[in-house]
């Protein structure tokens, strides 16, 4: 079970309260987490990754275990603590910008 925490705007959009819990077969990666998330909540399609390029939207970041995973390959397995549900996978709207 993977725990995902979304920014407030996306929780409102998809009518989600609190964190999302996803069942993912095999090792979870950024790609498999977001694929599963979009399949469960189609309202989120295109909001985290661009519809066409499938790249992370530039002003969103991915964090877990106090690490910025944003520039990791989308197919890199997520940290063990995320895989076993101890730590959440966080989607953060960039907080800098002046």
């Amino acid at each position, binding site marked *: 079970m993977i725990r995902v925490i979304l920014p407030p*705007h996306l929780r409102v959009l998809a009518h989600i309260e609190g964190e999302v819990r996803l069942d993912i077969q095999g090792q979870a990666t950024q790609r498999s987490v977001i694929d599963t998330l979009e*399949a469960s909540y*189609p309202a989120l399609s*295109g909001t985290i990754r661009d*519809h066409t390029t499938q790249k992370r939207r530039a002003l969103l970041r991915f964090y877990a275990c106090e690490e910025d995973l944003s520039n990791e390959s989308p197919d890199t397995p997520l940290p063990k603590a995320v895989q076993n549900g101890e730590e959440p996978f966080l989607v953060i*709207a960039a907080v800098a910008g002046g």
Partner: protein
Amino acid sequence: MSGVRLLVGTRKGAFILASNAKREQWEVKGPHFGGWEVYHMKGSPVAPNRIYASQSSGFFGQIIQRSDDGGETWYQPGLKPGEPTKNEAGLPLDESNKFVYDTSQTTGKPLTTHQWFDGSQHPWEFKRVWHLEPSLNDPNTVYAGVEDAALFRTTDGGKTWHELAGLRGHPSGSQWAPGAGGMCLHTILLDPTNPRRIYTAISAAGAFRSDDAGAQWKPINRGLLSKYIPKPDAEVGHCVHKIAMHPSRPNVLFMQKHWDVMRSNDSGESWQEVSGNLPTDFGFPIAVHAHEPETIYVIPVKSDGEHYPLEGKLRVYRSRKGGNEWEELTKGLPQRDCYVDILRDSMAVDSLDQCGLYFGTTGGQVYSSVDDGDSWNPIVRDLPPVVSVEAQTLQ
């Protein structure tokens, strides 16, 4: 009972302002989609409670929302609350926010490049929906003008969107360039007498017309002069800010260009300048009175570098002769220290017997007039910056 509903898009959400036919007392509802930019909302002319909204964000991209109850509740088309979100194969049903340029061999055009600010070529990239134009006779059909410039259409109430690629694929596409706000398709006009005729305008490419329901397009910019482009009378490259028409005379078009107010009497085949005695002819919106096809309104701002009223005085200008002769309308509008802007989709008219006029400002005010512009009253003063105003006349 008749009344008016104003659909107000702002930088931080959508608001709905409603009144009876007197238009003295207004109920303000919102924000809907709080925190998101709402570039435009518009209702179906044949089913006024069906409203479409373009909700976007630099963080999260583009969303299309729809209401079937006059803006009380909203949902993403294809995702009505409580209905299945996946098909039998487990795939998402929703594609309501999926705007993908059509590059297919059958109906599409190759994804090419357009001119960039530095003169280089830049690939087309979808950014947001600027304008939604519902069909005049089918509530499920809506046209969407997007940035980077292209025209999309839904025929299933917003569940799926398909590009009418003939416009983006026009041979002049490589000469189009973004204006300061982006390379946006911001104007869509449907000819009520000819369902195959559509007008669009793009900043900074110009005006285009299709006579075959959007398959093929021709630039209609003859007569436009843009001083600072390499060829001032070029076929394309003009920064058209807005075009308006009266439904009873769809061959007559009025245009607010970057500089210059223009008029065409022949469906855009040629344009003549009608700026006349305007103190400045730079501006964004232009509107036509609901019952007087020769009465038009503009709200000039000082210049392209100074998007605020001349001398800090907010003034609407009215011509009852289709241009050239303009009168200043100031009653009820601030006449000192006013430095707001009025964006291109921020002026609208209703079609009650006594035509109402409305405009919103980047300072968050929405003003109304029920005496042809002779006097104005603020409906609200402190919304987020207003991006668009549409008026629905409810019978």
